[in-house]
């Protein structure tokens, strides 16, 4: 049902399936992401969101189906391989080293060096400039990351991915466990990236109410397949809630029937 898209499609997955032993995580997933689009991927726990993400970022290999980047089929061998193709994932709290400064984190493993010493001054300057350009308000790039809030940390992780030439950004639950103010920081950042149009973004979210306003399109993943694909402007929190609740009721009914039979 999601055979749409056009020459502007940067990422396409077709008929992806993935099983873990007896458990079918994904049965048949097809979806696409257009250039500089923000796609909201929503679904209940266990719907297969994280499995799908891990396939796109090169962590899992699908049992069936194919992945196309810029129209060309690719077999993603590793996270590193996916990253070399411009696909980067930002996990909420895993990305940064708390004990290092903001600018060292921005340049982690891509440090600027005037051998044998680090070019701290240049890294500090560039990090500050990059964060300013992206509208991330970090008062002090010299601060240890441990001293920043969750939202600021995530913003830095996103900024780092963008700065390292990511073309497709996967944001995994970017707003989970975040206050309204913190969440607004991330939403502003995504909005800003969208406006500049250099990256395409998939936001994986549990709570679609928060992300609906910044998404161009919403895909709903249920039972290992995409059951819903609409522009965000043509749907509403109400419609999505109804879909999810209906699905939940159906599942409960099934379980009751099975238990009774």
């Amino acid at each position, binding site marked *: 049902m999601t055979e749409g898209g056009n020459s502007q499609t940067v990422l396409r997955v077709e008929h992806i399936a993935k099983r873990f032993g007896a458990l079918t995580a994904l049965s048949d997933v097809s979806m696409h992401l257009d250039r500089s689009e923000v796609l909201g991927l929503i679904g209940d726990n266990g719907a297969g969101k994280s499995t799908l993400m891990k396939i796109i970022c090169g962590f899992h290999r699908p049992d069936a189906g194919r992945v196309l980047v810029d129209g060309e089929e690719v077999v993603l061998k590793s996270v590193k391989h996916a990253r070399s193709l411009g696909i980067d994932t930002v996990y909420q709290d895993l*990305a*940064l080293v*708390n*004990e*290092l400064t903001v600018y060292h984190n921005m340049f982690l*493993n891509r*440090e600027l060096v005037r051998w044998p010493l680090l070019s701290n001054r240049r890294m500090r300057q560039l990090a500050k400039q990059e964060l300013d350009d992206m509208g991330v308000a970090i008062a*002090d790039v010299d601060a240890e990351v441990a001293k920043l809030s969750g939202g600021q940390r995530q913003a830095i992780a996103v900024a780092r991915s963008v700065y390292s030439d990511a073309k497709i950004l996967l944001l995994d639950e970017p707003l989970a466990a975040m206050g309204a103010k913190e969440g607004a920081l991330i939403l502003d950042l995504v909005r800003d990236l969208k406006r500049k149009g250099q990256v395409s973004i998939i936001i994986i979210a549990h709570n679609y109410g928060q992300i609906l306003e910044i998404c161009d399109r919403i895909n709903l993943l249920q039972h290992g397949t995409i059951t819903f694909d609409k522009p965000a402007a043509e749907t509403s929190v109400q419609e999505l809630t109804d879909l999810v609740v209906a699905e939940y009721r159906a599942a409960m009914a099934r379980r009751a029937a099975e238990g009774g039979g």
Partner: protein
Amino acid sequence: MSKTIERVDRSGQAPPRHPVRHALRRVGDAFLRRREASVLLVAIGLGIYFASARSVFLSRDNLVNISQATAPAAIVAIGEVFLLVSGELDLSVGAVFALAPFLMHYAVDYYGVPPLPAILLALVIAAAIGFVNGFITVVLRVPSFVTTLGTLFIVIGIVLTTSHAYPAEIPAAADGTVSRWFGRGDWSEITWCLLLVAFFHVVLTRTRWGLHTISVGGNLLGATEAGIRAGRIKMGNFMMASVLGAFAGILDAFRIHTIDPNLGGGTTITFTAISAAVIGGTALAGGSGTIVGAFLGALVLAILLNGFNLIGVNANPMFVVQGVAILVAMIANVYLSRLRRAGRS
């Protein structure tokens, strides 16, 4: 940083009565924010106390004594700091400390190797021991505590077996200029120590190696995700710790002018070095630590030992003193870092 300055300025605007006090507080803030500061204060405090209690404390001979007690522990501590920061630990380094002078002795006296290449050979073998430690820990995934406990016994066994548990004399060929340069001269050990502390301080704080060591210990998953080869970093640090231990052992053997299978007291030098690192503000959990702090930690322990000795406390209760010093330092560290965090946010 800028936030703190803001805060101070604001409080300074309303009642502009104590500009000097505010300036002092700002300097004080900046000083306290350095992790080494508290240890330095303790070292100075102890120095003043013992100097006033016994005037001989500041005599040249006694300062040489203190420097010679500080240096080997501090050099071993450098290696331990790198390992602790990257999230590992080396218990075997004390045994390597005792083995290295014997290796030099065997090479010179049994194989006719000149002294300097013999020292180099001992360091290379130490590097190989460090490699084994790293390999077992990183590749075979045995916790470094267990790995190095094993190699500790193996290396002690090698020392005792090959030496028949008897001390050996410094090889005649090395007993002259070489020995003077490598530990026998009064200020030789501390000079090496300060050079190494300065060098490795820069390595830890200003190079990629240091940054990646911190990253691996601070967030192993994140560092690996960013493409840092954590195994290589850890392996390198194991080798470095072993080589530094061996070098300190050779210096100490030249200093006491005998090659003793019990040099460094077996595990005592290891634990003194780890204590120095911890007192200096290195976290056992990984991710943070300072070389200068470890040096100051070793200095504090040496001053304590020396000072209590001078005022007539004998050696036995010194273990109690060392234990209390570690606990006090750690409690102070926890408390100060909480203060520091409060000062920033």
